[in-house]
């Protein structure tokens, strides 16, 4: 999991495919065309359609659905979703980066053991991990129980804390769900970082802060960028965590899209929201790669001279 996916491993012994090579690859190409490319175009077509009687879809070409996306109600939800997802991403970087760096700087045996401990929550279903927090946060849950037992509740908090079904709970749930997705890619690039570059920077008189800003951050940027993408985008659309931790009170773009397809049955509007969401994704992806491209040259000469 190094950097953003999509790099192509070159094989010098590869030969020209001719007809047979293409025929063999055809099933996979057909699968991708049918179930990745075609659905994207159908979604696009839906977003320009309109809703007929009984939720039927009438194809056509109108910008109405997009106009509705920019309705203040939905803009507010969109802005809120971006805010929550951004806050989650920032918290994941702040919490995860130091830990990933620490793990990457251990001797190999310890490094492998510690990263294995990150892999376990990474592979544990987010649904189970979110559910775990319900028991802790609910008003008659573990946290309030502990506070009550400690005697702090009557004095400091006269009533049990209502934590579940609040924005705080949503952010806790999102950070908890996606933290491993930040630690793993940052670890992957921190582990590859040549320690002698840090030494060299110190020798040349740079203070710890400057070393961090000008050597460590640029060299681990591919990991940070991958982590940000892996946290921000899913967090933006994750309506399941918002449903469980926020009840019906915190509505995010994901919840709105889900509702259009399951309850409101306004598929064209849902499709338009989906397209806007996809554009947002492409924009973030491009932005992170562009920022990555700018961050690398500063460090690249140093890296190639090492």
């Amino acid at each position, binding site marked *: 999991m190094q950097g953003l996916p999509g790099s*192509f491993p070159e094989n010098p*012994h590869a030969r020209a495919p001719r007809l047979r090579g293409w025929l063999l690859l055809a099933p996979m190409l057909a699968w991708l065309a049918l179930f990745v490319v075609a659905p994207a175009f159908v979604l696009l077509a839906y977003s320009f359609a309109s809703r007929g009687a009984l939720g039927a879809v009438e194809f056509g070409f109108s910008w109405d659905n997009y106009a509705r996306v920019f309705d203040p109600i939905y803009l507010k939800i969109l802005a809120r979703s971006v805010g929550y997802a951004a806050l989650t991403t920032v918290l994941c970087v702040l919490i995860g980066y130091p830990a990933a760096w620490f793990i990457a700087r251990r001797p190999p045996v310890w490094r492998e053991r510690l990263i294995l401990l990150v892999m376990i929550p990474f*592979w544990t279903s987010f649904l189970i991990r979110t559910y775990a927090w319900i028991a802790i946060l609910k008003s008659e849950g573990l946290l309030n129980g502990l506070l009550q037992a400690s005697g702090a509740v009557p004095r400091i908090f006269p009533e049990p804390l209502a934590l579940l079904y609040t924005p705080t709970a949503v952010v806790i749930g999102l950070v908890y769900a996606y933290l491993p997705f930040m630690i793993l890619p940052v670890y992957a690039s921190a582990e590859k970082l040549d320690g002698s570059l840090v030494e060299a920077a110190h020798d040349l008189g740079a203070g710890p802060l400057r070393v961090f800003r000008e050597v460590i951050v640029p060299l681990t940027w591919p990991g940070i960028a991958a982590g940000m993408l892996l946290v921000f985008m899913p967090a933006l659309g994750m309506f399941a965590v918002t449903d469980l931790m926020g009840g019906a009170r915190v509505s995010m773009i994901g919840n709105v899209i889900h509702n259009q397809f399951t309850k409101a049955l306004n598929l064209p509007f849902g499709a338009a929201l989906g397209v806007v969401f996809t554009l947002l994704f492409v924009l973030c992806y491009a932005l992170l790669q562009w920022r990555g491209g700018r961050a690398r040259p500063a460090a690249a000469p140093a890296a190639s001279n090492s």
Partner: protein
Amino acid sequence: MTPEAAAAISASPRTGRRPRFSGIRFLDGALGVWTALVFAFLYLPIVVLVVYSFNTSRLNIVWESFTLRWYGELFDHTPLMRTFKNSLIIAAAATALSVVIGTAGAWLLHRYRYRWARGLQSLVCVPMVMPEIVMGVSLLVFFAVAGIELGHSTVIIAHTTFCFPFVLVAVQARLQGLDPSLEEAALDLGATPLRAFWLVIVPCLRPAILSGGLMAFTLSMDELIISLFTASPDARTLPMQVFGMAKVGLNPMINALSALFIVTTVAFVLFSEHLRRLANR
């Protein structure tokens, strides 16, 4: 600042070299404490979940006494068992398809110099990075337009679409270290390309295929969002059932179920790690 102090940042405790500059040592210690706290944050809720699955109290607040009751009830709960069976069928089918498509795809992309190979590689990676909700929604409208009725098969198709790239990438990583003369030798000795692939290449790729397959299986078993859009009521998966139950509130049966899943996940991660070590040897 002395070079020793700078080196302390990257020095491993094993070398026994004590950093002379206390600031750096302090920083390392602080990072260690922080990392310990991060692990506590990651593991405490899981531990609480597992511990309370053995609690007699239905409400999960105070510890009453030890019981296995919820585990017993779990296996008698018809919706959970039915959706578990659905999930197993779907995950097994999606894994089988993913292993075939992913392994063949990785090998072909490795063996042949396709035109637009880079573009193809990016296209393969799209389902890995695409937000689940977009994938679910676009597949839903696609199935509607294509006139494919939602059911087990649509979930299997959806799951395979996002699972096979993981197998492909895992196999690709292994192929990079493969000796190219292996296939040539097999061909020189008179094997057909298909036999050479099956008898020489596939055995070499086995650890990667196995760990990719495990990954696909786990991803499919845990998937919720895409299933919500592509499953019919009678093809509901276990995560869909658990999601529905968790929305209502706490249920000790879900604690028990989660505990079983966590144990399985730990076993899976340890086994994958073992496979990875085999592959790197």
